[in-house]
């Protein structure tokens, strides 16, 4: 077989294949729940109900989507430039650490301190990705492996922090940090509803990233570098400096996930602050076809599946790992669908 590029794919092709990918994913999920001894459609129904069935469920889904919007944006921005940032997990934790460090020092100037926590987090996350990117641009070291390996280093660093320097003296010996001061938490978006401003911030970030990509020179340069770095260099675009800027942006966005989880939801830092939000961000970004506004939709979808699978598992006894399989399958189908929407398979 051989692939033939389609110059101007029809919109049926462009949207039909991704839609088929979703259908195929649902089929796989049905088969798996049947294997697990549950009624396939009942399982899917329970997932949907668990994610959207009540006010509490919807709020839980929105809360879960918040860090995923940030990590999804981080990945989408980087992948657009073909910068393979697989280290959003480490950048998230760097942001969380900085949030705790600034948020637990007594200043007494709340209106200044909360924004500084966010800025500090962004700086920390950007710095964490700056290392691998400089290694890439200076020495040609593949950033996939360095960002992946650094996730493990960062997690051990956090583990040391919450057992040592940042440990909560009132924590009954549990490895967690001193909590951020009550006044320094993100307020709720609507009085009485358990949804913090991290979600609003994530939406604003998505719109800003979209504007940046669609309307600014940097957005244009990022696309050019991603499409063909050699051609971009030939056209006079400073490829390395574009990559560095992309990295700072991507790392900063991922760090905001850590900031919003600590300042909005948990209040303190633990080793299990993130159940893999950084890695799930890759799925979110791919399902969104790397579009910043699509990231919001995809993050809600992915968060819904996780929240729904939790309640489904309690009711139907199918392991929660069904959600992870479902999302991995969705990712692979989506990549395939994207390929098929741009290429025609010729058998001969």
């Amino acid at each position: 077989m051989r692939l033939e590029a389609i110059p101007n794919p029809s919109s049926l092709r462009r949207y039909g294949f991704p839609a088929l990918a979703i259908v195929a994913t649902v089929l796989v999920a049905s088969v798996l729940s049947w294997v697990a001894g549950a009624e396939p459609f009942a399982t899917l129904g329970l997932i949907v109900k668990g994610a959207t069935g009540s006010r509490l469920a919807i709020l839980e889904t929105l809360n879960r989507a918040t860090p995923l919007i940030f990590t999804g944006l981080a990945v989408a921005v980087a992948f657009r430039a073909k910068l393979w940032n697989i280290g959003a997990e480490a950048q998230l934790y760097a942001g969380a650490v900085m949030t705790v460090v600034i948020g637990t020092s007594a200043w007494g100037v709340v209106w200044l301190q909360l924004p500084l926590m966010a800025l500090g987090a962004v700086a920390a996350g950007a710095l964490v990705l700056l290392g691998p990117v400089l290694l890439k641009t200076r020495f040609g070291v593949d950033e996939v492996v360095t960002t992946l390996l650094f996730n493990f280093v960062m997690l051990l660093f956090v583990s040391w922090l919450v057992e040592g320097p940042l440990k909560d003296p009132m924590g009954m010996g549990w490895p967690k940090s001193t909590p951020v001061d009550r006044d320094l938490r993100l307020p709720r978006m609507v009085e009485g509803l358990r949804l913090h401003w991290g979600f609003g911030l994530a939406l604003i970030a998505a719109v800003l990233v979209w504007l940046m990509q669609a309307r600014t020179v940097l957005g244009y340069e990022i696309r050019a570098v991603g499409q063909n770095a050699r051609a971009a260099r030939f056209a006079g675009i400073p490829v390395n400096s574009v990559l560095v800027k992309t990295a700072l942006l991507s790392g900063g966005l991922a760090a905001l996930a850590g900031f919003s989880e600590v300042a909005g939801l948990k209040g303190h830092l633990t080793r299990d602050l993130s159940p893999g939000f950084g890695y799930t961000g890759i799925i979110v970004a791919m399902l969104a076809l790397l579009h910043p506004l699509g990231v919001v939709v995809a993050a809600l979808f992915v968060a819904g599946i996780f929240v729904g699978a939790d309640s489904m598992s309690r009711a139907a006894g199918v392991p929660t790992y069904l959600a992870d399989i479902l999302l991995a399958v969705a990712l692979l189908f989506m990549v395939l669908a994207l390929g098929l929407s741009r290429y025609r398979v010729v058998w001969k």
Partner: protein
Amino acid sequence: MEMMALWEILISASFWAAAIRIASPLIFATLGELLCERAGVLNLGIEGIMVMGAFTGWFAVYLGLPLWGGVAVAFASGMVFGLLHATLTVPFGLSQHVVGLGVTLLATATAYFAYRLALPQVTSPPRIDPFQPLPVPILSDIPFFGPALFTQTALTYAAFGLALVVGVVLYRTPLGLAVRAVGENPAAAAAQGLSVTGLRMGAVVVGSGFMAVGGAFLTLSAFSSFFFDMVNGRGWICIALVVFGAWRPGKAVLGAVLFAAFDAGQVRLQQTELGAVLPYQLFLALPFILSIVALVIMSRRAEVPAALMVPYNKGER
């Protein structure tokens, strides 16, 4: 004082025995990755495929298969996920980064799902009877080298044997030449009448089988049980080891042993006065930091297969 402690560790046979043991799963998986990359395909599915192999190998033995049967089952399960990876990346030419990560997520989630399904509500996973040390006659009586090198389990000897086989096949057979050719210049290889798609897919499928056996080493020879997170980044370290070994089987094995020696060393250093002063997390982070440093040093003079990560599509030039 610390220097003395370090020296005593380095001259003990048990330290080197541990290093060889720790190196074994890395050798299997590194050889698997090396095979994929020599054919031109980066396989980031490695981490998940190791998890899958660790689970299937262990579960097969738990269900009553002999140990070598478990190894075979692990190998087969690795080939299945390798086939998935190869189908998406080779004929369809999809992004090797994204597909690889997708395969890792899928294989890991599937292994955990199957584990929970097969053993619901178990708090501590059941143990199996693992491979036992198998002293090589005569050689194991040599002082120092005997206990260090020749009192290992059969699976460890297999790891080193496999390195030899991969080296011979890659450099001394027409098949190996063909595999290297499609990784260096697929268009020229195709002009010679070689099937680029077939060779690349074959290399990825077999290589993924080796990765899964590397994972199975953990459950069948090292820990005798299956735990979540037991692979713990070893797959990513193997990708670094391939670069460190400059895509050559011999150097990759050397790298794996060197790396394992550091790993065995950090465990022992934790028990000295140094371990009382420094946080244990620093010792645990050392292998990952070391891998990054090795990547930086080696990447400047490594001979990357020229067509690594470049999909080949007939008629497109």
